[in-house]
């Protein structure tokens, strides 16, 4: 898994590529929390290059979303495809996390 943060006007785009599994998901959460401590609270997660996600990944994203909310921030997901999109739909996470088609449309949500 690889993560790159790119700051925009209203939010920070975090491009996540590779696999978010039981080993890498805790690293994702840890990195987001480190960025939060630096003052970043609006995350637009670009998953267009994410190949795989398991329940461990869902838990980490939920953890980040819960932590930014009291700070007035939010987590938005963009670019979900294939089985990654299916996992979000099955888990019902699409009910409380905004999901947008791509990074361009995601910027409007903030």
């Amino acid at each position, binding site marked *: 898994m690889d993560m790159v943060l790119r700051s925009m006007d209203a939010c920070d785009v975090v491009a996540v590529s590779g696999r978010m*599994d039981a*080993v890498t998901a805790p690293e994702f959460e840890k990195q987001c929390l480190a960025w939060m401590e630096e003052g970043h609270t609006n995350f637009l997660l670009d998953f267009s290059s994410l190949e795989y996600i398991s329940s461990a990944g869902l838990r980490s994203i939920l953890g980040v979303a819960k932590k930014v909310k009291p700070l007035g921030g939010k987590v938005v997901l963009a670019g979900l495809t294939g089985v990654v999109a299916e*996992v979000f739909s099955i888990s019902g996470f699409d009910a409380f996390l905004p999901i947008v088609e791509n990074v361009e449309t995601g910027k409007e949500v903030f």
Partner: protein
Amino acid sequence: MPFLSLERERTFKAKTEMVPEIVGWIEEAAEDAGLHPRQQQHLALSTEEAVMNICSYAYEIPPGEVTIQIFVSPEQCRVLFRDKGVPFDPFSLEEPDLQASMEEREIGGLGILLMRRVMDEVHYTREGDENLLRLVVYCRE
């Protein structure tokens, strides 16, 4: 009853760090079995969830071991997870409340839910001193 042949068998330590290796091994087997790429991904996901479940519940003194067997017939691909941990039926648990708000959302039960939804069949049995978890994928055109 279709004729199923044992294609592969391997025993792994039931530890989180082993997940990438186990999933990689299953992905290779699923490809060799001729499963559709989407089904290969479903099986990889379900394998991680099954193994993580065994890591967290099955052994009171971790890490134990899990033996994974892959059976293939022209009709289906079956993956059997065997562990000697405490008896634990993952499918006896209630499914998470999918309508809950983000604040109320519990973190447990998601892996089992995913397994149930993406596999064609899931079964649990206790035989002797072993937990047997079976995942089944139907081979499609």
